[in-house]
């Protein structure tokens, strides 16, 4: 006999607004019927968050400057003019004089733009390399556990037990100080940060039921990590990476200061801070402006990371589309419940 269910199924008659509605509406009676069932596009979400949008614009500007700067500026960053030495920021000396000049009369603006390229070309590859390698090993170790986990963790401990600056100093004295070597050293010393984070998250996720469910289909460990562990761990890792981004920039500047990082005439923000330190009393802008550039860039990256964390989580995404006032209330209300 064929079972034609008399039970019409729960959803067939379900009156609640929840079933029809894709995003925030279950929590949100005020938002009237929302016809488009698709989740909002990411740029719509970005536009809804003023801070994240501003941060994205800043990061875009920095990237553009780093990429196009050398083309647009020509040799402006190296052109010396001793008569214009230590000019404070002012509007009187054209665009290049906007942010003042350094002791050799070079335009600060041009040097900042030039340094952006160098800084990013060291920090970005270093962060990306350590992120990719550290996370991959960490998730693999955490998911499998046992011997593999112990081995990976011991290696991480060994790397961590050396002060990373010391390691870099030793290595860069032995090898030629070049951008490639600098990236390599910075990447290796930062791997444990991601390895440990990824391992902890993966070890926790490995015992979750949906991972068991994937195993009952016969999904291999690689597929399970890719489908279940990575998407959940990634936002955390990206947040760690943005924080680490500033750390790497500062380490690079320390190494440059010691003379084993970026070699003049190349210039990076960190190097500029280091060089400007002796003029702090007389010409504050030489050290402060590159410092401000570092801070603005890292803060923007952090804001974007926090935003991405919400935007990639289906359960949290509604916070980005909800009107501002309600969101503020939600943030206050979420702690006690």
């Amino acid at each position, binding site marked *: 006999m064929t079972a034609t*269910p*008399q*039970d*019409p*199924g*729960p*959803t*067939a*008659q*379900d*009156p*609640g*607004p*929840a079933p029809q509605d894709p995003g*925030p509406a*279950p*929590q*949100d*009676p005020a938002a009237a019927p929302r016809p488009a069932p698709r989740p909002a596009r990411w740029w719509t979400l970005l536009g809804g968050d003023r801070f994240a949008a501003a941060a994205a614009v800043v990061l875009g500007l920095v990237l553009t400057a780093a990429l196009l700067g050398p083309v647009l500026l020509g040799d402006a960053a190296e052109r010396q003019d001793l008569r214009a030495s230590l000019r404070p920021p002012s509007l009187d000396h054209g665009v290049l004089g906007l942010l003042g000049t350094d002791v050799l009369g070079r335009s600060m603006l041009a040097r900042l733009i030039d340094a952006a390229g160098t800084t990013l070309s060291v920090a970005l590859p270093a962060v990306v390399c350590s992120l990719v390698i550290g996370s991959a090993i960490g998730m693999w170790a955490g998911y499998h556990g046992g011997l593999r986990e112990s081995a990976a963790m011991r290696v991480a401990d060994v790397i961590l037990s050396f002060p990373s600056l010391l390691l870099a100093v030793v290595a860069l004295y032995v090898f030629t100080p070049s951008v490639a070597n600098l990236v390599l050293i910075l990447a290796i010393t930062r791997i444990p940060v991601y390895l440990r984070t990824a391992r902890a998250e993966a070890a926790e996720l490995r015992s979750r039921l949906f991972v068991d469910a994937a195993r009952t289909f016969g999904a291999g460990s690689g597929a399970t990590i890719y489908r279940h562990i990575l998407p959940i761990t990634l936002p955390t890792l990206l947040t760690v990476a943005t924080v680490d981004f500033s750390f790497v920039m500062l380490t690079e500047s320390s190494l440059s200061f010691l003379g084993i990082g970026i070699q003049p005439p190349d210039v990076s923000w960190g190097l500029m801070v280091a060089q400007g330190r002796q003029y702090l009393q007389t010409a504050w802008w030489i050290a402060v402006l590159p410092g401000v550039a570092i801070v603005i860039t890292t803060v923007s990256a952090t804001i974007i990371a926090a935003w991405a964390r919400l935007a990639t989580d289906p359960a949290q995404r509604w916070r980005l589309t*909800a009107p501002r006032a*309600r969101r503020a*209330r*939600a943030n206050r*209300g*979420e702690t*006690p*419940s």
Partner: protein
Amino acid sequence: MTVPTPAAPPSGAEPALEVENLSVDLNTASGTVRAVDGISFAVRKGVTLALLGESGCGKSMTALAVAGLLDPVAEVAEGAVRVGGTDVLRLGRAERKRLAGPVLSIVFQDALTALNPVQTVGAQLGEPFRIHQGLSRRKAREKAVELMRTVGIPEPRARARSYPHQFSGGMRQRLLIAMAVALGPDVLIADEPTTALDVTVQAQIMQLLADLQAEHDMAVVLITHDLAVVAERADNVAVMYAGTVVETGPVHEVFAAPGHPYTRGLLDSVPENVDRGQRLRSVPGSPPELTAIPAGCVFQARCPMARDRCAEERPALTPAGPSRAAACHFSEELASA
């Protein structure tokens, strides 16, 4: 050990606990919603009232409101909670505190989180005596040991020095009950006291509660989702749905001839009442979100007998017979069907 099932309820005159038109507002991520909407009930000494309902129906919120433990997630919007004649909602914090224990106390579902993990159970059980009766540490401990003996914990003197995690789930629940009845309250609220326990242990705990109730002549409010527990352990029942009471009355009358289609639906959903292989008559759909309670009858969307009137007008809890009431426009029709 074999024990008889509890006898019929003794009758008293004045209700020990009277809840009148109680409403509770819950602060959620997306604003304030009404979790409990104008409910009333009363319990006399020696009588057990069951608040029966499914998750999210507001039964636990009601318990917390009565016990004065709503902060900070929710607040009482209106209504009165009279314990022995005085409205506890009008009392100040200090006066209220004096009532907690000697007059009204509560047993929670989750015994592990309700006990302090870093304090010995002897000290915790002695606390009510130290606070309310000003006993010395030594005397309070004696009382605690005595209490542990009454709730059936073997070797109470030695076990008083143990910490909560050293007890099994059933024993922890006994400890919580011991703490609640320590000062011989008039009203005991038991919020799902056996939900986390195994069947054989659940039977022991329910028996313990019944014994203590008889001994102290307490009014008990038993909050549960389990129809069978209600059938066996309660004298009266208030069936809750979406924040309202939809039916009240003596358990045996209500379960024999329900006056509300929701009660009927619940009873029909119990597999025990249906032969093997037969379909269960389930209630279609799921309860409405608190943010989307319909204007008319709260149950209309899942009700097999819903008509136009149900969408327009919310039925009041109207008396049907000497001790029963139901909130349905067509409860007479249901009774005769």
